[in-house]
């Protein structure tokens, strides 16, 4: 079977690391490049972490340089409360094969790989969209060579930074607005989707724990997030990312008597590996349902970074995105278990 050629544009980031681990494990994917970008933590950390993970996992794909800040927005903080100050929750991992960044930027590496793959390349963007936006601006014909952009970002209900904005998109809303209107097919996997596959730490341990070539990664990962949820100060910070889930049917089809519009089902105590859930869609397309919709990104005002999904067609635009609905937890667990078969062999 023909592998799907992909590049992963990311801001590692612990969940980015799991996405990379997952991509590396699958015989369905041909990972051509890792492109780090500033996001969860500063660029100097995300780029170093990208190299460390690639070196630790023995990956031989390209690793590009990337954008060290958003297009227009000033840096306003980071997500160190989720990922640790270094972006990798203080993990000690060996860069066994001594990977470093190549002396080329993401916008040229992505374009080169897209041209090489003759229209089959899928860009999997799980951090802020700065690198992708610059690629589109520098290479307007990119759309002729890219099959799809799979994005982790956004929300059509509650956000995890501001009331409606999700972190990756909030970090660089202008880049998102450019990417959404690029004409390239997009699958948008936001919080509404990823939180559906939140795991308890026990469930996660059951999937990935025990002997494997990546045991020291998971031991440190699980220990960090167990502490995060048990340490009151850290938990308070972490609770900012708690969100609610609105049932899809209730939102889209309000003409339902006595609907169980499910606002208020929170996900306290569930750990969401956003980036890995997004990437997993390439391995199991039954992981979540998608709906074609027109999506725009607010760049101004209180809701900057909100992905506005026009479910009711007010804006009279053609759909530009496949918007992901809630992901299936059991299917995601199966993906994680399958991944671990690779690392246990």
């Amino acid at each position, binding site marked *: 079977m023909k592998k799907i050629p992909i590049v992963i544009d990311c801001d590692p980031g612990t969940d980015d690391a799991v996405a990379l681990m997952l991509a590396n494990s699958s015989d369905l994917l041909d990972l051509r490049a890792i492109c780090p970008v500033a996001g969860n933590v500063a660029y100097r950390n995300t780029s170093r972490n990208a190299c460390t993970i690639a070196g630790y996992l023995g990956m031989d794909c390209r690793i590009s340089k990337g954008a060290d800040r958003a297009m227009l927005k000033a840096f306003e903080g980071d997500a160190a409360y989720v990922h640790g100050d270094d972006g990798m929750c203080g993990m000690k991992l060996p860069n066994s094969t001594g990977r470093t960044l190549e002396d080329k930027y993401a916008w040229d590496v992505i374009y080169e790989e897209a041209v090489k793959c003759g229209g089959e390349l899928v860009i999997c963007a799980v951090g802020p969209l700065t690198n992708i936006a610059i690629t589109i601006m520098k290479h307007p014909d990119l759309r002729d060579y890219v099959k799809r952009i799979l994005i982790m970002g956004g929300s059509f209900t*509650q956000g995890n930074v501001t009331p409606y904005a999700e972190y990756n998109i909030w970090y660089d809303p202008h880049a998102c607005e450019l990417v959404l209107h690029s004409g390239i097919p997009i699958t948008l996997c936001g919080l509404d989707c990823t939180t559906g596959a939140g795991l308890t730490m026990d469930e996660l341990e059951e999937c990935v724990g025990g002997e494997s070539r990546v045991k020291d990664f998971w031991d440190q990962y699980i220990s960090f997030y167990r502490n995060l949820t048990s340490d009151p100060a850290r938990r308070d910070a972490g609770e900012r990312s708690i969100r609610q889930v609105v049932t899809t049917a209730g939102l889209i089809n309000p003409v339902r008597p006595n609907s169980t*519009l499910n606002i208020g089902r929170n996900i306290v105590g569930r750990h969401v590996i956003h980036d890995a859930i997004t990437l997993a869609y390439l391995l199991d397309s039954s992981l979540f349902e998608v709906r074609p919709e027109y999506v725009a990104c607010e760049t101004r005002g209180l809701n900057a970074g909100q992905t506005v*999904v026009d479910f009711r067609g*007010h804006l009279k635009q053609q759909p530009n995105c496949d918007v992901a609905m809630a992901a299936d937890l059991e299917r995601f667990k199966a993906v994680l278990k399958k991944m671990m078969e690779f690392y246990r062999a």
Partner: protein
Amino acid sequence: MSRIPVLLDGDPGHDDVMAMVMALASDKLDVKGMTVVAGNSTLANTSTNALRTLEWLGLEHIPVCTGADHPIMRPLQIADSVHGKSGLDGPNFPPLHTKPVEKNFVDFMADIVRESEQKVTIVCMGPQTNVAIFLLANPDLKDRIERIVFMGGAAYGGNWSPAAEFNIWEDAEAAKIVCDSGIPVVMCGLEATNYARVNRREIGEIRAIGTRASTLVADLLQFFADKRPDADDEQKLEAPMHDAVTIASIISDDCVELRDAHLTIETDGSYTQGCTVCDFRGITGDFNAKVSVNLDCDRFIELMKDACRRLK
């Protein structure tokens, strides 16, 4: 128990009239008067519709005062696609014989608030233009207002744009003035009001009550039912009674589910202008609002039927 003094403000409008019926029928409320605003239709129409309603119900003693004829910062855009040419298409009313009181609307509101023994609850059923101007003009009366209960907004999504509901979209600046005023607000938004719907069977049950109020409410609902000849008796119709949910939230504690939130209004967004920004986690500010998240529709219809029975 003493009745809650209430000042109604609205842009009738089918659902405004249903809210008026529910408010005027309740023995828990003391409706002191009504101000009218442009919104669903022009100010001339909404004023006429308020007076017609009160005449029909034999409640001409409730004073009506006409307010702002356009939003604070924007031109008026009416919703005649929903409410028809008159703003209240459907029922046949006899010729009008009453008039609005001849008073500046801000002074009319201020007098009611000042003269009331208890703090007044303001119920806002249209764009919040009148209430915003009143608050700007009478900063000294803020502590005489118990709370402001309004129909508008949505925690998620909208009905007039992807992120905004009509009333708030129409005058976002006014809504921001109201929500940021420091007065406790109750937002009855689409998460509740979209579920305040009836089917043909329920319209029939309301009509069968046989009072003037029930005839009026049934005629108003029939206007929407006539647009959907294909719908069977049980199918809920696109005839939401949005505004009446405000009254239901005041007179009943088991109809509208409310949650604490920090609430403000987006006035500048490219795509989200008029969005009611509902922060249920309180990360952007202290809780200043209760926001509707669900509605018990059966209970709501029961409240509407009760109102129709009371208003002979």
